[in-house]
């Protein structure tokens, strides 16, 4: 049986992305048509039944998020689509934007109807200039065809989508920083409470969901929450778009049902197809740079929210970066940490100063200058950041480090005695010193 499940990605490459006609030809906008005949609460109930979880990375139950916003009786409300796909190794939202934008528009419009919102915003990362152009054209086409804009499909419901550009800051993927950026302010996370459902965009109640989350909505409305849930596991409804990269034979985006194992994903010929070269898989990084690293004994874990969490792993954005035995864990973590140093907004101490010191310690390790005390200090910092940082970025910045410290301890310890098992560290340095 195939491990692929093209529930949301069926249109990719099959239709002209901006053609409303072709989109309708594949069943497009039936979700919206159906939604307009339902009550908002009925739609929210379907999303709850579907057990859809946020696809941006945090995995918060979408139904619960929608209910919270729905219960706030303060208007206007705004709908925001987070298309700031900045998580390294993640490139699935990009496909929706360029290959099936009308699906995202349909999802955002259903949300607009549920919350009686008149304005929706999509915040697209600056690097996706080409995708932004496609998306804007799709919006224009949808307006022209009466699926967006004034009196949608002849109803009282009017809704507009504004396409906005980010400027390439990873932190703007954090929802409150994104809203600041949308408002023209510096993209740094806000103090919470108040939560965004209460005080969001322009200080109004706001829904922020990821591109893939919105892309799920038309299908859930169309086929019903129960049917949707059945594609995944009892706790993780539906499918997930995963992004395979690194030392893997078949890199790319795949839509899989929740519940297949990590081993399936990495080794199945239809999916990852195993490591790219002759070297064995050493570890894999789940959910982007902010996610945990997984190791060989965890390969038989089903890919779904609950089972992964039990093993200290997570779905995150859906990124899966595979690393083979040519990779030194210290060298890899140095790159991860450099990323967070570059992208930290800098306002809170643990993230700004903690990442800097993690980098110092990793560098000492890679140079063979670290002591046991340095390793303890590294452990202290990896415990500190998740518990004390201001926002998700800082809280997640040491996740890879923590999981590697726990599972590849011997490789860290080897570096204390000047030994790099992957043969990466000291060769570099010796030639540098000559």
């Amino acid at each position, binding site marked *: 049986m195939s491990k692929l499940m093209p529930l949301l990605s069926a249109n990719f490459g099959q239709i002209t992305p901006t053609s409303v006609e072709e989109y309708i030809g594949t069943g497009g906008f039936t979700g919206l048509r159906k939604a307009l005949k339902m009550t908002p609460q009925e739609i929210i109930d379907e999303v709850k039944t579907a057990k859809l979880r946020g696809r941006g990375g945090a995995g918060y139950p979408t139904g619960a998020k929608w209910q919270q916003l729905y219960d706030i009786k303060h208007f206007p409300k705004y709908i925001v689509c987070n298309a700031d796909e900045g998580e390294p190794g993640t490139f699935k939202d990009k496909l929706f934007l360029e290959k099936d934008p009308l699906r995202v528009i349909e999802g955002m419009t259903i949300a607009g109807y549920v919350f009686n919102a008149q304005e929706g915003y999509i915040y697209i990362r600056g690097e996706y200039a080409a995708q932004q152009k496609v998306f804007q054209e799709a919006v224009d086409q949808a307006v022209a065809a009466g699926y967006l804009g004034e009196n949608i499909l002849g109803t009282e419901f009017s809704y507009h989508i504004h396409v906005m550009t980010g400027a390439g800051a990873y932190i703007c993927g954090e929802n409150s920083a994104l809203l600041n950026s949308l408002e023209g302010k510096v993209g*740094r996370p806000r103090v919470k409470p108040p939560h965004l459902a209460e005080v969001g965009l322009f200080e109004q109640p706001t829904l922020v969901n990821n591109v893939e989350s919105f892309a799920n909505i038309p299908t859930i409305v169309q086929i019903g929450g129960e049917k949707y849930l059945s594609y995944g596991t009892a706790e993780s409804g539906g499918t997930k778009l995963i992004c395979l990269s690194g030392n893997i034979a078949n890199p790319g985006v795949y839509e899989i049902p929740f519940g297949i194992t990590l081993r399936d994903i990495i080794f199945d010929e239809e999916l990852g197809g195993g490591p790219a070269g002759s070297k064995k898989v050493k570890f894999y990084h789940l959910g982007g740079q902010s996610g945990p690293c997984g190791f060989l004994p965890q390969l038989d874990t089903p890919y779904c929210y609950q089972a992964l969490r039990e093993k200290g792993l997570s779905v995150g954005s859906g990124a899966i970066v595979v690393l083979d035995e040519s990779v030194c864990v210290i060298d890899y973590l140095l790159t991860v940490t450099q990323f967070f140093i*570059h992208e930290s*907004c800098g306002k*809170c101490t643990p993230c*700004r100063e903690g990442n800097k010191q993690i980098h110092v310690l990793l560098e000492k390790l890679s140079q063979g200058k670290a002591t046991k*005390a340095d390793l303890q200090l590294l452990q202290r910092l990896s415990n500190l950041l998740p518990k004390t940082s201001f926002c998700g970025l800082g809280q997640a910045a040491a996740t890879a480090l923590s999981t590697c410290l726990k599972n590849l301890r011997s490789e860290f310890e080897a570096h204390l005695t000047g030994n790099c098992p992957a043969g990466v560290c000291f060769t570099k340095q010796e030639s540098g010193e000559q």
Partner: protein
Amino acid sequence: MQKMAKTKNKLVTVTINGEQITVPAGTTILEAAKQAGFKIPTLCHHPDLKPRATCRLCLVEVKGQRRLQTACNTPVREGNEIITNSAEVREARKTILELILADHPQDCLKCSRNQNCELQKLADEYQIRENPFVVSAKNLPLEDSNPAIVRDMNKCVKCGRCVEVCQEIQQVGAINTANRSLAYGISTAFEEELADSTCTYCGQCVTVCPVGALKEKDDTARVWQALNNPELHVVVQTAPAVRVALGEEFGQKPGSITTGKMIAALKRLGFAKVFDTNFTADLTIIEESRELLKRLKDKGDLPLLTSCSPGWINFIEKMYPELLKHVSTCKSPQQMFGALAKTYYADKAQIPAEKIFVVSIMPCTAKKYECTRPEMKSSGYQDVDVVLTTRELAQMIKQSGLDFAALPEAEYDEPFGVSTGAATIFGATGGVMEAALRTVYETVAGKTLEDLDFKMVRGLDGIKEATVDLAGKKVKVAVANGLGNAKILLEMIKAGKCKYHFIEIMACPGGCIGGGGQPFGATKADKEKRLESLYAIDKKSKLRKSHENLAVTQVYDDFLRKTLDIYAHELLHTYYSDRKH
């Protein structure tokens, strides 16, 4: 207002370190813990400002929460079990402190905030004896190219208090947060110098800085040098707001009245004469009242705006130059004093002006700039040579080994020693207005004012207003303190919707008692104490109206009326320039 709304709301009961406490909903963990008797350490938090939750030192455990929670901004919820001091919390706080210190110069001994630094106190409380982290020096250049404020960003802990004060309270917008990650910090636009920014030198940023990153330009060395120069006759004037704040530097309660001891200290420091700026405050009232009455009579530019606060003058020159015609031409009391010291007093004491060195003790950082303005040389010399803040004076007193508490009470010297209660309240927001009203009323009405207390214009509210009946004419006045509040009134004038005839504006919230040169660590409550003391001095004064100050009358009779009108005018009045940013 906010408190009232809170108490109307429901109450919540929580447990903090095992102690049950009931507080109004919306109370932060920090506040609730304080009420329960537990102090939670803070660095970025300031009781009068919004919580920022960025230093992460106020972390506590809340049962059921995976992460530690910041006490400064997290409201308590019914049934919360909070632990403020567990091993985990202490470990986290200590590590965060070590991280902050690893990014901070290690030169406490040489720092202007040594022993008066919030970070140093925390390092001591948490027994940071060595730092496991690599300490890195930033080697950022010192910004000291202006006469008032020094910025040393090497010491900045990025708490953001200065930004809130500059952006939101003062609405000057000279500084803001800039850059990200390791480069994140506080900067002027494009890192221009303060002098080229919209900065007014109000120094409010300095008063809230927890460390030594922001300070006044230290001019004590110049004063010591003058005092040690036998060729110079060094005189000093003290502003009204200094006397009710200086004591805090010596461990006294906010609002302690230290006039006599302050004078004694100045005499022991070696000043030849100790004069009172209050004297020229009375003079200011005479001049400004005349100006107001003239503008009312001649239908001149109204409203008339006061001109005593140099931060405020910088603000209007830089931000609203089109409204400069509304500003009173009267010099500030400090500058009237300087001009008279090197003319009237020089003649009287028979000392050549070039031998007279005038020092001011001010609650203010902008005064340091004011005295260097090119207009302020009407004696032919720089009228005021050096301005010291309240804090700098305290430093000199400490350095001289004077036991402040044990000093006797001394009195001001003649001829600038006599003053009225009206002059004393110049140090409080609304004080100049009240002083002016006492004089204007009696001038116009020609009868004695029964109730001298214009309570409508007192207190810490941002904008206050009153209507006064001047012999049948209703005169509307307003008082603004804090430049953000000034802005509201200026916008009204600009829009042609201003109904006031006379407006007092002070750059600093609370007026001079809350000035940028006042002792560190004062909260709103402390500032209220300083205010109360100024009004207490006024209440006890024998003379409470500026026009009853006979020493001032004597200056007119002996000197000002005998000189050319144009010269007298130049001594006491000034002009302003469009410095639009």
